């Protein structure tokens, strides 16, 4: 199977290497704040055609950065990315544009993601027109078709974003992405800013788009219940690494990694009326100075000596399931 997007050992750093002045200050025993953040630290993940891939983790774990890298908005510092089996390097300008258009982002904040000075007609119609996907005379029909696709009508064509509600704006944002016929939608906290009832509508819309158009969805959220509800597979991230990947069922019902177990235990459910919560101890460590060994060992209830020293390898425990934890190293199945 050719993967829609395949990312291998992606590393993404933010900030700058210390300049000469900073190094001098450091040599003179002034404390210098480190400036380099390793947002992604060797992340490998595949997006399969037509699947919904959920990505969960606390804020600051690098899930949004991963989304931006997958969407082609940021280039990784190390590692390789292939789109339908081909790297960007082997593509010419024209093909690169096609690849760029194939992955579109649906943003979190429906108030900031639409240009406040533009009408809905322009917002949705710009990209298809600029890239010559649609003739100018067919544009209105195309835009209307996109609006219909997301459950809006042509009455919206000449409205401004400020005239719409949050859910309607989010639909316009989705229509804008659909207008260039993407193969993957990267939804970065796309429902987090919406009311719960609107959330449910938008989630149904995403599911319908996947079923009708065969679009892959990468669904990034801190809200495990939302992700579980929609996803086929789930990747759990912690401090720039993927700690576990499995089907939604596997992750939710039998989490392997201690971090995933803690996340699932924290998620409120109707079925269990627990009174005490085994909340994950402590705060997320500073990404400027990540812990040695397994990044989770500072908060892990099952941590042992080795976790402080070695970074755990990612191992397959079952077919289609990987986990990065020293607890499972004996359980490796032969490849």
């Amino acid at each position, binding site marked *: 199977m050719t993967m829609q997007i395949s990312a291998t050992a992606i590393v993404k750093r933010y900030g700058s290497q210390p300049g000469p002045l900073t190094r001098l200050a450091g040599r003179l025993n002034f404390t210098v704040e480190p400036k380099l953040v390793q947002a992604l630290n060797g992340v490998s993940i595949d997006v399969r055609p037509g699947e919904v891939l959920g990505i969960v983790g606390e804020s600051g774990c690098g899930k949004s950065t991963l989304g931006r890298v997958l969407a082609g908005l940021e280039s990784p510092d190390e590692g390789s990315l292939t789109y339908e089996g081909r790297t960007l390097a082997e593509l010419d300008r024209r093909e690169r544009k096609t690849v760029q258009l194939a992955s579109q982002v649906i943003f979190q*904040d429906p108030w900031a*993601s639409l240009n406040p000075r533009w009408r809905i007609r322009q917002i949705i119609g*710009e990209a298809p027109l600029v890239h010559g996907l649609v003739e100018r005379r067919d544009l209105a029909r195309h835009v209307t078709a996109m609006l219909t696709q997301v*459950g809006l009508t042509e*009455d919206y064509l000449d409205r401004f974003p400020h005239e719409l509600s949050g859910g309607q704006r989010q639909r316009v*944002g989705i229509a804008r992405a659909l207008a*260039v016929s993407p193969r993957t939608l990267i939804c970065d906290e796309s429902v987090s800013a919406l009311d719960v*009832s609107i959330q449910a509508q938008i989630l*149904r819309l995403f599911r*319908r788009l996947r079923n009708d158009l065969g679009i892959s969805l990468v669904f990034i959220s801190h809200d495990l219940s939302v992700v579980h509800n929609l996803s086929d597979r789930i990747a759990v991230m912690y401090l720039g690494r993927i700690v576990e990947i499995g089907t939604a069922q596997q992750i939710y019902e039998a989490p392997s990694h201690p971090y995933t177990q803690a996340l699932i235990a924290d998620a409120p459910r109707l079925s269990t009326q627990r009174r005490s919560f085994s909340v994950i101890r402590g705060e997320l460590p500073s990404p400027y100075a990540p812990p040695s060994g397994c990044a989770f060992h500072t908060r892990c209830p099952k941590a042992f000596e080795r976790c402080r020293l070695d970074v755990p390898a990612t191992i397959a425990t079952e077919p289609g399931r990987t986990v990065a934890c020293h607890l499972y190293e004996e359980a490796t199945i032969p490849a």
Partner: protein
Amino acid sequence: MIEQTDTAALTLPPNPARRPVYEDLLDFLRDPVAAVAAFVFLVIIMLAIAAPWIAPQNPYDLASLNILNSGLPPGSSSLTGGVYLLGTDSQGRDLLSAMLYGLGISLAVPFASVLIALVVGVTVGLVAAYSGGRLDTLLMRLVDFQLGFPPVLLALVILAVSGPGLGKTTLALATAYWAVFARLVRGAAQSERQKEYVVAARCLAIPAHRIMFRHILPNVISPLIVVGALEWGACVSLEATLSFLGLGSPITRPSLGMLIANGLSYIMAGRYWVSIYPGILLMSVVLCINILGDRLRECLNPRFKA
């Protein structure tokens, strides 16, 4: 689940009646000072435009001047029978006519300079903010360097090298002011650039120039209008200063600043009118522009609204 459709409950909000333009205008004029300034400024503009038709004399036509009429006080009659309402200058020019013609130059030259400065400054600011990195640093250091010079000094140097002339004055003034716009636009555009609608445009592979001028520019335009208006006022003063120093408009087409300069040597001789009347007019022009610019800022910035 209460509703099982994803297209549910999409009642279109009622189309809010588009606020008519005259309401914004009324809002603008609610401030009495601004209303008076707007009225005075309108009269001034109309006088400047109508100068060739309403001026008693063509001050550029040297043949119509008579040296015997020189230095007459306001209200004197000329040899040919007309009345010099505001008197004449040392060449026997009707001061009122010279002022009406000079007014046009004093308004138009700075206006053109501000427009040029706006185009250059906006382009530089947008490019700097959008591209970031080394180009941003380079352009902004250039802006800092430029802002480090007093505008008068910079314009003086340029005109001293190139010689006087209306076109050259326009360019000199534009050179003195573009950096203000560049810095303003760069700051505003930098914060716009982070917003998701710009990221979305990048994701949609919209070309950079389109993102800069079609997406970002319309969202930074309102502070530009305000600063543009205020800079116009500053530019009128600067042009007058340059003309006063003999470097702006040519002596055959005097602007207000040059008229003031021409009269200066006669003030002590009791011919106060040659300098005072153009001076009052220049002051009114700059005052009106500044008041209107300030009012514009109040109206465009919701934070100032009561």
